[in-house]
């Protein structure tokens, strides 16, 4: 489903390449854990996977289409239709309420809108169903300004938004790093369940190794990424 080959990426302001990945494959529905130290380029890789950034060299195939060869608008279309994204924090649009935040992707993707409708009857019902599955459907919570939610609640809203319309790929960039250990595991379990329901593959990035056993597969970012292999690491190597 996701297939990277010989991908290189250099920030325009940097001298050296940040990312050099020979091969990376993610199967449909697979749950992949990517672990790596801070500053190693994990978030940058996720931007490449989502088609927000384009690699300097190599190919990134998502659902058979090479993101690197598509126009900006084409990549935006693919991302809107097939990718859900969860950030580390500040996931929510402050001027939208919980429901509006969850339904947001359906405003940008026809495909996800129809899929959400097919699953839930209509978009709002599907949003409500996802929120309920993530224990967020308490009365009063849905219409509340998102600025009044706790961080854990915000992350669950973000997960519901990433999952609505069942995108083939859910990308999570350290979504649990501001949660305590109990909530972190509960959140990951919920995310797994809903990804399985939606049939989405999950690429989950974190520097927190304790989550690794929960996943189908774990990759060390530093060994995946030739540009940041331990010998060339400047941020101090971590024990593998």
């Amino acid at each position, binding site marked *: 489903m996701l297939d990277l080959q010989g991908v290189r990426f250099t920030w*325009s302001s940097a001298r050296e390449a940040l990312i050099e990945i020979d091969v990376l494959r993610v199967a449909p529905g697979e749950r992949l854990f990517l672990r790596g130290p801070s500053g190693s380029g994990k*978030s940058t890789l996720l931007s490449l996977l989502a088609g927000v950034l384009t690699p300097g060299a190599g190919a990134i195939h998502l659902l058979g289409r090479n993101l690197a060869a598509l126009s900006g608008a084409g990549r935006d279309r693919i991302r809107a239709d097939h990718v859900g994204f969860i950030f580390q924090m*500040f996931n*929510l*649009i402050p001027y939208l309420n919980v429901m509006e935040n969850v339904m947001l992707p359906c405003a940008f993707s026809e495909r996800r809108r129809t899929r959400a409708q097919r699953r839930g009857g209509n978009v709002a019902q599907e949003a409500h169903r996802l929120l309920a599955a993530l224990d967020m459907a308490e009365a009063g919570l849905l219409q509340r300004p998102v600025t009044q939610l706790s961080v854990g609640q915000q992350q669950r809203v973000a997960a519901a938004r990433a999952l609505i319309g069942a995108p083939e790929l859910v990308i999570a960039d350290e979504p649990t790093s501001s949660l305590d250990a109990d909530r972190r595991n509960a959140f990951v379990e919920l995310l797994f369940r809903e990804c399985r329901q939606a049939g989405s593959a999950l690429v989950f990035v974190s520097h927190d190794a304790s989550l690794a056993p929960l996943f189908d597969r774990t990759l060390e970012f530093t060994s995946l990424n030739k540009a940041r292999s331990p010998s060339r690491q400047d941020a101090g190597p971590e024990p593998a």
Partner: protein
Amino acid sequence: MSAIPTLAIKSLRNRRTTAALTVLSIACAVVLLLGVERLRHESRESFTNTISGTDLIVGARSSPVHLLLYSVFHVGNATNNISWDSYRSIAQRPEVAWTIPLSLGDSHRGFRVLGTSPEFFEHFRFGDRRRLELTAGRVLQDTYDAVLGAEVAAKLGYRLGERIVVAHGSGEVSFSLHQDHPFTVTGILARTGTPVDRTVHITLAGMDAMHEQMPAGRSADPLAAALGKHGANGGALHRPPQGEAHPHEDGDVRAGHADDGEHGAITAFLVGLKSRPAVLSMQRYVNDYPNEPLTAILPGATLPQLWEIVGAAEKALFGVSVLVVVVGLTGMLIALLTSLSERRREMAVLRSVGARPAQVFGLIVGEAVVLTLAGIGLGFALLYAGLLLGQPWLEARMGLFIPIGWPSTHEWSLATLVAIAGTITGFIPGYRLYRHSLADGMTIRI
């Protein structure tokens, strides 16, 4: 995509205090811009409409603009008069169809008094060649008749038959009252939107009779004495002594028509010609009049000179209001730019759900457009509120009647220019966010 306008509105609602203040500042700028332009346009319009159908205005030698101002607009005073003989001899020329003598210099409770003849009501035209109409009574007939302009009657609450006293000089405070010769209101004119509304019209004979009674002529004129520069001649500023003129016995004049016979000097007179092509030769004739230095002007040719004089002030005023619009839009720019850093996260989220960089750009520009349009809308509302409130005041104090009509095409184009300027202002923060969203990917940083 309909998502972007909805987001723009919701985002603005979320920051409603800033948004409201921004809208208000744009609205104030728009009110100023449109108000100044409307005032300028309407005052020109009303000046242009003050007189029509008159071929020449003749007065003592002076600058054309000065003559136009004091004779028709009742602004300022004449420096000299025209002798009755000169007036008669010009009026009797074969090219002349009609003349209207104008004798200014007195006032009634702050309103100008115009001594004239019944021809005034017959030949004077304003606006689109409209003639004066009476709402009550009749035009001037007897020596002590007075016909009031609409504003005079309304403001002072006069009705027909009321007896009024005319004062010398034109100030609100009368220096000497012509107590002996009270005039009787015999007619009230319909509203014209011109200085006629604020004028008390009396007969030349009535004016003469009144001034005959003045003790010691005009050297006692306290206004002239206070100004101190015209000396004994100061009287000529207003009305000359009438001693040498052929005095009318009161009863005499009442019996006959008010404009029969001879009068003292007059301030100016309006001329209608039998054929328009004669106007230039007639003007030359008057300007070269041998017995007395006179000036003849074509009202239509002198108005542009007046605009030239006031044009600089108008331009300055317009410039100031344009600057205020710039300040208003800069306020909006500041409000949008300061929100940008906190909004970069929001933009990353929008990008992650599939928004294109162009849509991120459109969101910010859309907010600028909404703010500007709201400001313009509120500006128009405030303008009309101001016009409704200010209309009576402007008419009473400035003699400027501002009709409340739909915005002119000029105003629409000004509003459109403001809208375009507001949109372009939005391009600045929009472009910055656009650049960020392209360069940063979805990495959120401060």
